[in-house]
């Protein structure tokens, strides 16, 4: 599992459509092992679709996708099993751990990390939107998987929680590097976490710009390079000067 070739992701000339709606057009992309790729693009352009293709949940209409290694996804919405408690939901990634004690410890630690310890016996429908998202985050980090696909995983979190989660994710990835494809609308997030940022065009989506971000970690929010990266991303999104945006 820690084989260097284990987590390759290659997208080769992939197009996808739902009936009439063309969503991806001739997309080619290679994600390197343990690389963190952030996807940024307009709403409805096909980011979720791309993740579904990467994880193998859907087959592309044309083109080829190669995936090596096991992938897990943080879904954009409601990926928790509603019939399991938070504790049990997090536990499903650890079913293969033979020692119950070790399993329980790991679950407890993850719940601590996402600050849901006191809600471990709640069912998903008894949680707030942000809490559900955090539970899903804990679940995806449990156990061992080579690839993480994350679809706006922090979108329902408050600013502070977002910062914490970002930090924790970085910490977890440092301990156990993984290949990550991460969809976000948050420029800060992209600049702080990415090895590479891909800017997608409007639907049908193609990669209209690729920004490698080579800033050494840890990256401070106010570091010049990070601020510069953020500005770069905004520029790539066609938002050269948001300062002028008035409401």
């Amino acid at each position, binding site marked *: 599992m820690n084989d260097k070739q284990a987590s390759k992701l290659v997208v080769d000339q992939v197009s996808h459509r739902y009936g009439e709606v063309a969503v991806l057009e001739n997309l080619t992309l290679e994600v390197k092992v343990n690389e963190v790729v952030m996807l940024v693009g307009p709403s409805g352009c096909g980011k979720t679709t791309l993740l*579904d293709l990467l*994880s*193998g*949940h859907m087959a592309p209409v044309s083109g080829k996708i190669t995936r090596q290694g*096991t*992938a*897990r*996804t943080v*879904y954009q*919405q*409601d*990926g928790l*099993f*509603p*019939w*399991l408690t938070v504790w049990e939901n997090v536990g*499903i*990634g650890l*079913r293969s751990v033979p020692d119950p004690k070790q399993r329980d410890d790991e679950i407890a630690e993850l719940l601590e990390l996402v600050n849901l310890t006191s809600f471990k016996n709640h*069912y*998903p*429908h008894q949680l707030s939107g942000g809490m559900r998202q955090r539970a899903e985050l804990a679940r995806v980090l449990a156990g061992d*998987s080579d690839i993480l696909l994350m679809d706006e995983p922090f979108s329902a979190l408050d600013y502070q929680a977002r910062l914490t989660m970002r930090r924790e994710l970085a910490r977890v990835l440092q301990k156990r590097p993984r290949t990550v494809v991460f969809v976000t609308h948050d420029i800060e997030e992209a600049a702080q976490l990415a090895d590479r940022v891909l800017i997608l065009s409007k639907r049908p989506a193609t990669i209209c710009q690729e920004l490698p971000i080579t800033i050494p970690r840890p990256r401070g929010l106010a570091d010049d390079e990070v601020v510069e990266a953020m500005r770069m991303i905004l520029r790539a999104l066609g938002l050269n000067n948001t300062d002028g945006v008035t409401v």
Partner: protein
Amino acid sequence: MTRQSSPPSTQKVSSRLGRFSSILVLLGLILLWYGISALNLFPAYAFPSPASVLVSFQEELTAGRLLNDIVASLWRVAIGFVLAVGLGVPIGLWLGQHLQARQALVPMLNFFRFLSPLAWIPFAILWFHIGDKPAIFLIFMATFFPMTLATMVAVASIPSIYFRVAKDYNYSGIELLTQVTFPAVLPQVITALRMSYGIAWVVIVAAEMVGCQDGLGYGIWEARNGLRLDSAVCYMIVIGSLGMGIDRLFAELTKLPAVRWGYER
């Protein structure tokens, strides 16, 4: 709808009120019955009065027959129904997930679903002789197919995301069926259970035509043959009440924590 928000005291009051009103409705029905039979709209032999039914109820009870019949029928229904559910639900889950198998087998299942236990009787006798076994077979035949198909259809309505998650976490085979598919359809399976259970009781009269010497269905049959409509009504009331009571138990299933999500979202 916003049940969870109403403070507990209100709930308790409303449930007490509910029980009260349901008793009122039942009392009203009995009164209506009493009134019609008192008005002699229908001749007494064709429309037994509550009093005569009560008398025959007492008769059957003291003769020990009624209790015996209840036990016999409960047993047959239980065996037939448990078999039907025990086979139908897994098969339904499995069919729900295998398009190929579904396409191949559903027409056949559907075909058998429409056959009346009354039509099966000759074969039931041929294969299972008379007594308990053919009765159980008939109950099974009447409930297995609806149970299977309802489960199968329920699987089709599972949001695909659950299967995606299941795939992410390496669920497959039996584990997928029992840990994902089954809990995902459980609320609907409970509904199907309640419906099929109703069918099982409805079929008991036909099932106990095949040489049973006891049972509530046989009781109705015997009462009709013996022109004892009062006793038939008495048996109908017992069947209805028993069914109703056991349905309450099934309704309790909807209160399981792992099922509440189906009703509280």
